[in-house]
């Protein structure tokens, strides 16, 4: 290996090390948002869990929270339809989970059943599933999951929101934004907004 090659190797290692360090110090940002799994965030909201979950169960409220990402409507049979700002629609049906609720992807026949889970990647000899975590395939059927647990003292409820890639791609921090807006709505009755905005820009005139 000549000197130039060695220098290149060193540079590559330095860059990889810096990227790795950044990913480690920004958990939930580089690590999760950039990966294939759901984005996840927890915030504390000074309201009872029942009130928090009632809001998540209301498609009009969720639509307001999603704002620029998607709109949501609830149709016959309780099915929810997400119309994505990036184009396309997603159907989902609500389901209760322990301490919360989730919206599972649906198709014409109803909610999709998750394929058989691969609990141990060593048992999979067909390839293609190596490295998946237990429960991952099941998680892929969830568009939005909200779970709650009591916060300490009188702080209210700790709310965890997980959002599928389709709802979070392209917009950083979607679960955080959803929870931030919900907290604002439940505490103040308002979602903070700056639109329409006085500004010397064509789109704002």
């Amino acid at each position, binding site marked *: 290996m000549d000197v130039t090659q060695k220098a290149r190797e060193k540079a590559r290692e330095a860059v990889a090390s810096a990227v790795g360090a950044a990913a480690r110090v*920004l958990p939930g*940002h580089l690590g999760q948002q950039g990966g294939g799994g759901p984005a996840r965030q927890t915030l*504390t909201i*000074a309201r009872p869990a029942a009130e928090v979950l009632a809001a998540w169960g209301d498609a009009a409220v969720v639509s307001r929270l999603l704002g620029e990402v998607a709109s949501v409507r609830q149709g016959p049979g309780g099915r929810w339809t997400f119309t994505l700002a990036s184009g396309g629609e997603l159907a989902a049906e609500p389901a209760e989970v322990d301490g919360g609720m989730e919206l599972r992807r649906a198709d014409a026949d109803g909610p999709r059943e998750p394929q058989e889970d691969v609990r141990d990647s060593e048992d999979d000899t067909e390839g293609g599933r190596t490295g998946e975590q237990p429960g991952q395939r099941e998680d892929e059927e969830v568009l939005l999951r909200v779970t709650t647990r009591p916060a300490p003292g009188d*702080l209210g409820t700790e709310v965890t929101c997980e959002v599928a890639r389709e709802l979070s791609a392209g917009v*950083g*921090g*979607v679960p*955080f*934004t959803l929870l*931030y807006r919900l*907290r*604002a709505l439940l*505490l*103040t*009755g*308002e*979602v*903070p*907004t*700056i*639109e*329409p*905005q*006085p*500004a*010397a*820009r064509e789109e*704002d*005139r």
Partner: protein
Amino acid sequence: MRALVWNGVNDLAVETVRDPGILNPHDVVLDVTLTVTCGSDLHFIDGYLPGMRAGDVFGHEFMGVVAEVGPEVRRLAVGDRVVVPSFIGCGECFYCTRDMWSLCDTTNPNAALQQPVLGYPSGGIYGYTHPFGGYAGSHAEFVRVPFGDVNCFPVPEGVSDVQALFTSDAVPTGYTGADYCDITPGDTVAVFGAGAVGLMAAASAKLLGAERVIVVDRLPERLELARTRVGAETVDYSEVDSVQEVLREATGGRGPDAVIEAVGMEGHGTGVQEAYDRAKQALRLETDRATPLREAVLACRKGGVVAVLGVYGLTDKFPMGVVLNKGLTIRASQQHGQRYVPRLLRHIADGELDTSFLATHEMPLEDSVRGYEMFKEKQDGCLRAVFRP
């Protein structure tokens, strides 16, 4: 309406933009009477703070008359003369209910932009960078004020518009610093920076009982104001070899009991350190020239308090070892104006606090580009340029 907008680094213009309106039920629209330059604006005007968008209306220190109220506004009426703190509170969240208004948990529409850097975003602010909310600013004929009931403070009779104006930001910011110093009788407080915030920090330290206040700056006209309008002692750092030594000698070898840093990321200094910071900042290898912050830490007595009011980004070479070994307490925040404005207006009405001398220049909004130039370059002794929309 007419408004002063940021079109790019060092590119300002007065342009016509749409009028603001009521967007949420607790909103108020204010007919702006006075709005004023602030040193923290210079950080994005000069391009050191990212997050502005071309065409943004900026400005965050203002007062005016209520022109329109939302359906849920209860305590205000059209025609009320009010002053508004620069950070927007909601009055309902964990932080507002604990009187830490600039940390409001609900008023930042762009909180997700700030979260990766701060972890926990601040409240919104008028006319500043988008991670701070992206709200339209006050250098305009009208401005929208969210949660009017908790963010608009009626100005009492006997307090002029100009006097009230500075209780929007410069005075409560300065008062915050003095309050953080836990002043007891006999204390000596040093203030780094004799801009409007530094002068108000010095005046507030006096109000809160400091026996001696020593203001450090390099501009003779500002040091003159510190002596004549605040009653402070002064040190011109450009005329001495070591500010630390001067302060140590002036306090019998103990050092000031508390030091308030009121300069921020574009601080000046002397010598090699100043040159090093300037080069590194110009190359965007650091965001701050933090000489005054380091000096404040070094100058404070053991066990003292350093209150940081200056706006900083990500500072290099912070002398943490000095903080540790001297047992210092560092306190810092953006201003929690809603906590202080009523008492500050009372101090002004009672003649205990003078703010009017901060308005060294007054002009129509149409001349505000020139006003910012004067302010930035400190021309003609400009401490603050006040605009009348």
